[in-house]
């Protein structure tokens, strides 16, 4: 093993009563790509924030290149050659690439010289690592993949020898992620050390040399990537065996429950987001809509569920029209048996400052079982919430707790329980497992399959291609607002990936 670039010894960190990191030991050899994997809340990000000087460890030692180093602020980290690419980019959106790169590393009080210096330095980095980006472009006009590149450039410009990336692929398309991995490989070839934090097992297997697994604030194992398997890592992460493949029988499609015909939707700027889309969903099947985020899936879901007005087209629920171009009322749709698990649970699905029991009936609160005359029947609501908590294994099992205090996975279960337990005929689900940990993903997938097996129609939208492929009975691919293809669940990832990138349309034209 090469000399260690980073050594962490006995790191402890608590936030109040929560012990985010306990007695962490970690050794990252120089010139390698080291993965750190764990569920949400396992303490990965905290550990890296300690290394970057954002927080300070309560106890423990950090050694950089063999020397004990005190890292009290990000400045200290930068000084010893540690750079970080944050999950949420730390960029000033209306600044140019150059301005962002020099921010904090200007060197002198006047900008002229530092900008000129940065310009030539960027050209050098571009040549060396293939990190092309227009130095005068405004950040907010760049696609996320390029914004991320600017973050990497920022770190390299400050002379980073050790680069930490926190969940770098969460916002990227598969193609952008591949490009990122090529860049990381190149950085490694030039002798840089890369630490990659992620909860996606596939990325770990694809690119890392070594992998460390965290669970509940402790470092449970470190493996050579070539000597481990996805199954072993998943088990280490969760602490028990996990079924990564969803087991399901054949679909048994019945009548058409939801029929969408020539639906066109524009967004608030007047851009056509859904363009003449038609499909149906039958009882007893899951129809998955695959696509890179931003290709109209969100607007499609919003139009069908009555949140956003469509420009034209018809939608039939149980052969009766939904007034999608007029005043479709989500409450009325719920009464007609159409339940909706929105993509964005924080802003649309839940009121985070409400108690759990309030969220677990929200939208159904005027049903007679929750009412006592004109008032809410608080006892019945509590009882109902308790039942759902037991059935969906929502933790902590406290219906009076503020919803914001539940983890992402448990919040998602609250939404699912609310919608599924009303026994709808059609369930529309957007991004059911975004920001949800592995254990809860398994549970949510099982529930969706169970819905299907009870003869419900399920429309699933997800940007996770794996999820679409393992759950769906039919896969529709959306690109630039249109449905560009339909495939069965046996279709290969590559085939669907090409459709998602809009490739087939060009071929068809040739």
């Amino acid at each position, binding site marked *: 093993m090469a000399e260690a670039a980073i050594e962490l010894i006995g790191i402890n960190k608590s*936030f109040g009563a929560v012990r985010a990191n306990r007695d962490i030991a970690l050794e990252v050899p120089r010139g390698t790509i080291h993965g750190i994997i764990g569920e949400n809340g396992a303490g990965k990000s905290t550990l890296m924030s300690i290394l970057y000087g954002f927080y300070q460890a309560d106890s423990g030692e950090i050694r950089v290149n063999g020397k004990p180093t005190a890292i009290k602020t*990000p400045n200290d980290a930068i000084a010893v050659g540690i750079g970080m690419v944050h999950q949420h980019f730390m960029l000033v959106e209306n600044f140019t690439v150059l*301005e962002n790169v*020099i921010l*904090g590393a*200007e060197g002198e009080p006047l*900008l002229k010289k530092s900008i000129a210096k940065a310009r030539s330095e960027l050209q050098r980095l571009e040549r060396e690592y293939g990190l092309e980006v227009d130095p005068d472009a405004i950040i907010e006009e760049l696609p996320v993949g390029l914004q991320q590149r600017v973050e990497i450039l920022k770190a390299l410009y400050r002379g980073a020898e050790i680069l930490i990336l926190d969940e770098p692929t969460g916002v990227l398309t598969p193609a952008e992620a591949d490009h990122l991995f090529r860049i990381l490989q190149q950085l490694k070839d030039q002798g840089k050390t890369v630490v990659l934090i992620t909860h996606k097992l596939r990325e770990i297997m694809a690119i890392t040399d070594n992998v460390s697994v965290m669970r509940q604030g402790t470092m449970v194992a470190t493996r050579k990537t070539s000597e481990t398997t996805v199954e072993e890592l998943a088990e280490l992460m969760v602490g028990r065996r996990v079924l990564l493949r969803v087991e399901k029988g054949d679909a048994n499609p019945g009548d058409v429950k939801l029929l969408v015909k020539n639906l066109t939707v524009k967004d608030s700027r007047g851009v056509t987001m859904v363009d003449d889309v038609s499909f149906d969903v039958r009882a007893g099947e899951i129809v998955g809509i695959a696509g890179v985020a931003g290709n109209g899936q969100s607007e499609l879901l919003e139009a069908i569920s009555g949140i956003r007005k469509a420009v034209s087209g018809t939608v039939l629920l149980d052969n009766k029209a939904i007034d999608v171009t007029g005043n479709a009322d989500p409450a009325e749709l719920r009464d007609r048996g159409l339940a909706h698990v929105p993509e964005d649970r924080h802003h649309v699905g839940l009121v985070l400052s409400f108690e759990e029991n309030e969220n677990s009936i929200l939208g159904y609160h005027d049903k007679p079982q929750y009412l006592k005359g004109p008032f809410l029947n608080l006892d019945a609501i509590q009882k109902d919430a308790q039942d759902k908590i037991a059935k969906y294994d929502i933790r902590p099992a406290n219906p009076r707790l503020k919803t914001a205090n539940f983890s992402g996975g448990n919040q998602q279960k609250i939404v699912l329980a609310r919608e599924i337990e009303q026994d709808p005929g059609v369930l529309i689900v957007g991004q059911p497992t975004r920001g949800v940990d592995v254990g809860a993903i398994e549970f949510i997938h099982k529930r969706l399959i169970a819905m299907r097996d009870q003869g419900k129609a399920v429309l699933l939208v997800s940007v996770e291609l794996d999820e679409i492929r393992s759950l769906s009975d039919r896969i529709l691919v959306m690109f630039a607002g249109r449905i560009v293809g339909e495939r069965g669940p046996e279709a290969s990832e590559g085939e669907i990936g090409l459709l998602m990138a809009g490739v087939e349309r060009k071929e068809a034209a040739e």
Partner: protein
Amino acid sequence: MEFVDALINILNSTIRVSVPLLLACLAGLYSERSGVFDIGLEGKMLAGAFAGAAAAAVFASAWIGLLVAMLVSVGMALVHGFASITHRGNQIVSGVAINFIAAGSTIILGQAWFQQGGRTPSLPPEARFGAINLPGADALRDVPVIGQIYSGLLSGHSLLTYVAFLAVPFTWWVLFRTRFGLRLRAVGENPAAVDTAGISVAWLRYRAVICTGILTGMAGSYMALAQNAGFVKDMTAGRGYIALAALIFAKWRPVPAMFACLLFGFLDALAIRLQGTPLPVIGKVPVQFMQALPYVLTVILLAGFIGKAIPPRAGGVPYVKER
């Protein structure tokens, strides 16, 4: 030639009326660009005017007056900073509090110190900033148009007037050509980016509010030591708010800020000029209407003519390190 005279007259008073607006507007620009909203410009101006007039009266020196005005104003800016940067309080509430404190304490202290019903003693010429005649102004007075503009419009203002207009290109230069300016703009847009770049968000914002204090102190001094000869209660009369409106109108940019202030100043000057003058067609208009006109136009302009003004994205939001 009478028309040119009248025009120069109006433009001249436009400049006079615009100066406190401009200084306050640039003051607000520093603070708000750094992400600290400041509705307390009015209060800081008023406190500056009072402190400046009081010190100038006691020490018989305009310069000491200016210095004390800036100190007091910076002090109040730091109070606002302490509440909204260090303690992450609500910036609107803190700003309004500053305004109330200034409105009340200037009268109480003025009465306690000078017993003139909240006024400060009338200042002799040497304790004020007098008019500066630019070289050759008198000689050129009779040259048509150019000479008139030079001697009637550009010459004959107080030192603070020239400082105010020079502060516009200076602010632009600071904002877009210096390290401090780059960081200032960055911290108002995304403080987390500044923090992770190893720069202290709090210290940067404190420096911004200190700039604000210095400029509002000047604005107050101009009113008490140049435009008038002493402090009168509530003498800022809402100019701090108009300056804020001009700042939004200018979309937080220095050169447009100058034009916005000149426009508001022009409306004000026009209203003064037209008071009691019968207008063609309409006839005589009540004084109150003419006085209200600038404010009415302000509302209309702000509501309909500026398009979308996007404030600094982190404006009004205290910075908390995320967990």
